[in-house]
């Protein structure tokens, strides 16, 4: 076991997959010599060369569209979108093409590819370098969506994503890149897609989270623990396909559910979680399924006061826990 930052684990995951399978390639803006604007691909171009780590022009639809073609012809592309906020020019290719190829060919043609993108706020990224984008993509049948929260998972889930037969959107919270560290085994391992994990067991109330919000939820749970509130924290890890069992199992046990997400509240991913819980755990609920999320304004202003105002925090989540616990 070694201690790795979040971004190191991602980089190692890519390196390992490039080494393991010659079909794996990386393409994106500045992924080569520069190693990516966050250095996620640092060193990979030097090791694998121009054919496997490809600096593309500044054209997201091309990055995704050409990856689809490359996947149809035997490769397994890992496409980097420099910031999640810049994925929208590629929306049509992702939704209409990558995610539908298998269905529209009744299984004949498949698109095994990973799209990596740094998302999330709290880094002075302003309106267009801070967004959460999972809501748009979790609505798309045929696409898988992964958001890891620990270095261990980041590496293990990335490897599973690369080996998966379907397109996977793999989102990395950029605030975690260097601030989150954890143990990562030296050898080969994977973490399966579609499995949530209970990060903190508890009896009174379940907090559902993913990405950075898992850490904030755990911190919030610690804060309220001192006040006698015993929270369970579930880390979804894969947003689609959703691990209903872990989700519902936890809520049926605790009877209360708070969903925490950084994105805008209205039609954010937490809406689906809340709707499922409300419908399928109704008989077990001792209080309303609650959501704590970003305000319904564009995410998020640059000015630090306004950014703080927008972002969730352990304190804000703790307040929401207290309110629901007191119900």
């Amino acid at each position: 076991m070694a201690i790795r930052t979040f971004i190191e684990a991602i980089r190692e995951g890519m390196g390992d997959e490039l080494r393991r399978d010659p079909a794996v390639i990386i393409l994106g803006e500045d992924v080569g010599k520069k190693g990516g604007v966050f250095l996620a691909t640092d060193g990979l171009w030097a090791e694998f060369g121009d054919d496997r780590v490809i600096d593309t022009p500044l054209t997201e639809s091309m990055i995704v569209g050409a990856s689809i073609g490359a996947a149809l012809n035997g490769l397994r592309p890992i496409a980097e979108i420099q910031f999640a906020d810049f994925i929208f020019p590629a929306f049509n290719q992702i939704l209409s093409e990558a995610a539908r190829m298998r269905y529209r060919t009744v299984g004949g043609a498949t698109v095994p590819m990973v799209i990596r993108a740094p998302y999330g706020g709290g880094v002075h990224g302003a309106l267009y370098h801070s967004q959460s984008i999972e809501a748009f993509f979790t609505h798309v049948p045929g696409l898988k969506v992964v958001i890891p929260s620990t270095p261990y998972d980041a590496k293990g889930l990335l490897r599973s994503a690369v080996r998966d037969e379907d397109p996977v959107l793999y989102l990395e919270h950029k605030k975690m890149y260097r601030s989150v560290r954890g143990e990562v085994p030296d050898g080969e391992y994977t973490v399966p897609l579609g499995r949530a994990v209970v990060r903190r067991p508890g009896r009174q109330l379940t907090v559902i989270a993913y990405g950075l919000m898992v850490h904030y939820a755990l911190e919030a749970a610690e804060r309220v623990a001192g006040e006698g509130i015993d929270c369970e924290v579930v880390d979804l890890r894969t947003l689609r396909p959703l691990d209903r069992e872990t989700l519902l199992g936890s809520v049926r046990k605790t009877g209360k559910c708070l969903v925490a997400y950084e994105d805008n509240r209205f039609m954010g991913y937490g809406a689906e979680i809340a709707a499922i819980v409300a419908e399928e755990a109704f008989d077990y609920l001792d209080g309303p399924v609650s959501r704590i999320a970003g305000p319904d304004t564009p995410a998020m202003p640059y000015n630090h006061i306004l950014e703080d105002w927008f972002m969730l925090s352990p304190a804000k989540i703790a307040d929401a826990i207290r309110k629901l616990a007191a119900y």
Partner: protein
Amino acid sequence: MTSELAAAAGLADADLVAMYRTLALARALDERMWVLNRSGRAPFVISGQGHEGAQVGIAWPLRRDHDWVAPFYRSIATCLAVGMTPRELMLAQYAKADDPSSGGRQMPGHYGHVGRHVVSVSSPVATQILHAVGIALAAKIRGLDQVAVAIMGEGSSNQGDVHEALNFAGIHKLPFVFVVENNGYAISVPWERELSVRDVASRAAGYGMPGVIVDGTDVLGCYRASRDAVERARSGGGPTLIEAKVTRLTGHSSDDQQTKYRSEADLEEGRTHDPLPIFREQLRVAGLLDASIEGVLAAEISALVEDATAFAEAAAEPDPASGVDHVYGDPAANEPPPPWQPARGSVADRVIS
């Protein structure tokens, strides 16, 4: 002996007749699809009529099941030329379970064939150009000597994806050919309102690639342009843009009434560019066709169309329970099916709807 016509194209006489046969077969199948539509047996038809000369000429130099084609909804003759069969095309027209393009999931005209390297086409236009470019990239990286061809109309060529694709193909000198079948209209919008230049080919220079204009009624001219482009691509010379000037002999689709926006004179002019009689006349003059050969071919084509129609008409409908299939490779990744999901193999539950 080889005719002068064939020799000039570097082909055998038999090739020219085979090309003509493909063109005529495409036309006959296409016409049958309209008959099916007008008689209420097919809710939708979209046609290649007028485009077939360019399609056959351009597809001919491709290596079957090796090179790749990303076609569009008018590519009926292209698909026949690269090996799809009349039965396969009719299964798609009837949206039957065994339709190799999509198992009846897509509208007719949305071609695709995994074994034949025909990339499944969707409805949003122009996206396929990037798939072909990506296929060419993979061919280059993997050291395969495949060429990838993308085809679309001139209206579609204005989409942003085309710019991004041509730029990338040019940078990496990919084994890629971009074919624009320019029929002067995007549904009702005439070329002057959809294109800032008369010739799409004049955009090629901006991507560092040759832009070639061919007359879609000159089947062998189309063939030569394509052969040169494919050879150039295969030998590492990089991409080419080929613009074929064609005519749309039908409405945009069975849902369109083109007399509303095209004058009779315009339609009349269009009909003078029908590649079928022009190519036939060329082969007659060269001595490759005569009444007896044409009679044999016509009978053969007619039999193929009848067979394909009857075969597709009789083919099985998809099982309604199959609607949930192939969203993901692993069915466990599916969301729970709808409450009305029928059992496998049951017939459609007509009561509920």
